[in-house]
């Protein structure tokens, strides 16, 4: 309708303006995703872990020393942080100086220099790294004093020599980002070297198995664990890694099947590439997975005898201390380690902008275009990453987390971080209280338990 017709008085009145209102259900992000799916006909794939808010360690607080409890002085009054993993059956358990390990991340997902940096950093502080879905690289074995070798459904690169070179073996049943899913690596990251290690044609999308090829179920996993022990002459601890799902049963079954260590990865755990719906909608928060797993170990008389390593959103010494207080023996970091190496660095803002992202937001790790040279197989990009510098940064971060953990533990009067216990914690929300099974702050109420 023309302006003239309007001025003449004929036609309907001008529409009034109301404020733009975004829906909570169909918000901008959801609308954009539906539009993308309509364009492309395929699910969205990305890296990183769950991004939406879920109850987490931030909802827990420590009860520091007061009149009834006394703190330890820093420095002189020791607060030890060492942990031994895998003494149940292995001749050579892992002795770690700090209760923080580096989680499994594949060469393929990460560049070779990134894997080297992880090894350097971990070794500098006396802890271990873990291989990933793709096998063991000489860089990682060379630079990691202690290396855990994963046995995944894909079995890419699996061989007995690496099994024997490893310090421990981790049977991966699942990971927190996608319990029930298999590995994923898209064609753009299947470089010559990756292709050769994985026995795949170069440049194709790797399809993945979600079940192990030669066993299904805990009763058959027991036999598999037996085989791995026989191949390695009973020397090495056997870990079993599970994604947070039914941790009470899964932990019991791992123990019954013969695991020396249980690694429990909550839904916040990262991935190099998975469907967005899988990351956000399958698996339970780390906080809610720990108490059932610990309960299971206690019922079997195995708490502290079969160690529990927790991962999935561990970001600081506060998270470490809280996980330990809930009953874990150690924690593992993945995403945090990559960030310490240099992922999402603010200095790369321009480069991130060129690929449609920004520091603090970059999660398209599956694309292999990482300007930081970490989640890429592109030789030029990877060459930008300095593994020695990255290693130092990781070591700094690990030391910081350890110091933070010790600070909190001392404030609670503990001379060893393992003496942190659930009674040192309270919760800020009802959900966190129910999940962590600790009281709401200022009350004695634990929803579901003390009702």
């Amino acid at each position: 309708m023309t302006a003239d017709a309007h001025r003449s008085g004929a036609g309907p009145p001008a529409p009034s303006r109301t404020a733009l209102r975004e829906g909570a259900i169909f918000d901008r992000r959801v609308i954009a995703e539906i539009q993308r799916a309509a364009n492309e006909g395929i699910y969205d794939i990305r890296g990183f872990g769950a991004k939406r808010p879920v109850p987490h360690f931030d909802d827990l607080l420590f009860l520091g020393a007061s009149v009834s409890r006394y703190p330890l002085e820093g420095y002189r009054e020791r607060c030890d942080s060492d942990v031994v993993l895998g003494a149940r059956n292995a001749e050579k358990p892992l002795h770690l100086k700090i209760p923080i390990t580096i989680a499994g991340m594949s060469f393929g997902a990460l560049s070779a220099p990134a894997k080297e940096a992880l090894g350097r950093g971990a070794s500098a502080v006396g802890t271990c790294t873990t291989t990933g879905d793709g096998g063991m690289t000489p860089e990682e074995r060379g630079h990691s004093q202690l290396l855990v070798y994963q046995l995944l459904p894909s079995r890419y690169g699996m061989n007995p020599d690496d099994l024997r070179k490893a310090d421990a073996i981790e049977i991966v049943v699942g990971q927190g980002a996608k319990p029930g899913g298999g590995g994923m690596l898209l064609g753009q990251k299947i470089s010559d070297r990756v292709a050769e290690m994985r026995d795949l044609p170069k440049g194709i999308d790797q399809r993945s198995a979600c079940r192990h090829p030669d066993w299904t179920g805990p009763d058959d996993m027991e036999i598999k664990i037996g085989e791995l022990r026989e191949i390695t002459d009973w020397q090495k601890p056997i870990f079993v890694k599970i994604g947070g799902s039914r941790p009470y049963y899964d932990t019991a079954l791992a123990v019954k099947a013969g695991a020396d260590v249980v690694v429990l990865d909550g839904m916040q755990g990262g991935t190099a590439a998975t469907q967005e719906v899988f990351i956000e909608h399958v698996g339970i928060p780390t906080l809610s997975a720990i108490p059932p797993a610990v309960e299971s170990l206690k019922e079997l008389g195995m708490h502290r005898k079969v160690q529990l390593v927790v991962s999935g959103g561990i970001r600081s010494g506060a998270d470490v201390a809280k996980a330990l207080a809930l009953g874990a023996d150690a924690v593992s970091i993945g995403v945090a380690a990559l960030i310490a190496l240099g992922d999402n660095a603010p200095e790369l803002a321009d480069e991130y902008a060129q690929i449609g992202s920004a520091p603090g937001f970059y999660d398209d790790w599956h694309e292999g275009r990482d300007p930081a040279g970490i989640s890429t197989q592109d030789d030029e990009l990877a060459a930008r990453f300095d593994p020695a510098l990255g290693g130092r940064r990781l070591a700094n971060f690990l030391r910081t987390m350890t110091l933070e953990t010790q600070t909190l533990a001392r404030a609670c009067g503990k001379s060893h971080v393992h003496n942190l216990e659930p009674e040192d914690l309270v919760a800020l929300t009802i959900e966190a209280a129910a999940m962590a099974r600790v009281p709401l702050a200022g009350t004695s109420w634990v929803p579901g338990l003390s009702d």
Partner: protein
Amino acid sequence: MAMVESAPAVIEVDLAVTPLRELNAALHRVSGDDRGSWRVLNPRGAHAVAVGVDAPLEIDVEGHVGYYCAGMNKQATVRVHGNAGVGLAENMMSGTVVVEGNASQSAGATGRGGLLVVRGSAAARCGISMKGVDIVVHGSVGHMSAFMAQKGCLVVCGDAGEALGDSIYESHLYVRGSVAGLGADCIEKEMGEHHVAELSDLLERAEAGFEASEFRRYGSARTLYNFDVDNAGAY
């Protein structure tokens, strides 16, 4: 450990008397080029017999074995005079493994090299995720055989069950009998000269008295190599 030398070069281990752990430890202690002969008696379905061997030994297992016999084998020739359970020669790297009887599920799973011969039949998932091993089955194989098979050859002188070669990458499959059904992205393919040569060589080495001309070849259609929405139904 009780070991008896019954002939100049044969070391005998009786699993009715000797713990499995000692047998495997002893096999692991030999030097990497040891060509000695070993006989394992009374396996009675034990699991993980002769696993992780890395020397060109000749190992004869007298009886039926349980799961994962000859798992991750390197260089050795392991002969099972009986049937084998789940995961026979899983992830084998090189050498030869022969089972005189039948093999249970996942025979040769994720194998990366060497030759596996099943003189009887293999069950489901024969050659699952194979990564370079060659497998020759004188009899038939069960369903989901060569699932996600990446490299290496699977030769079936009998019949193949449902979903053969589902999600296959670059392995070559040769079947002489009937195929109950092909898996996603697996199709029949032409036999070129080099395929005939490859198959004939395997049949000879496996002592299977058939001609390459009696077999049909199957392999990847390669439509799932890079995602295309029109193939979504295959996933």
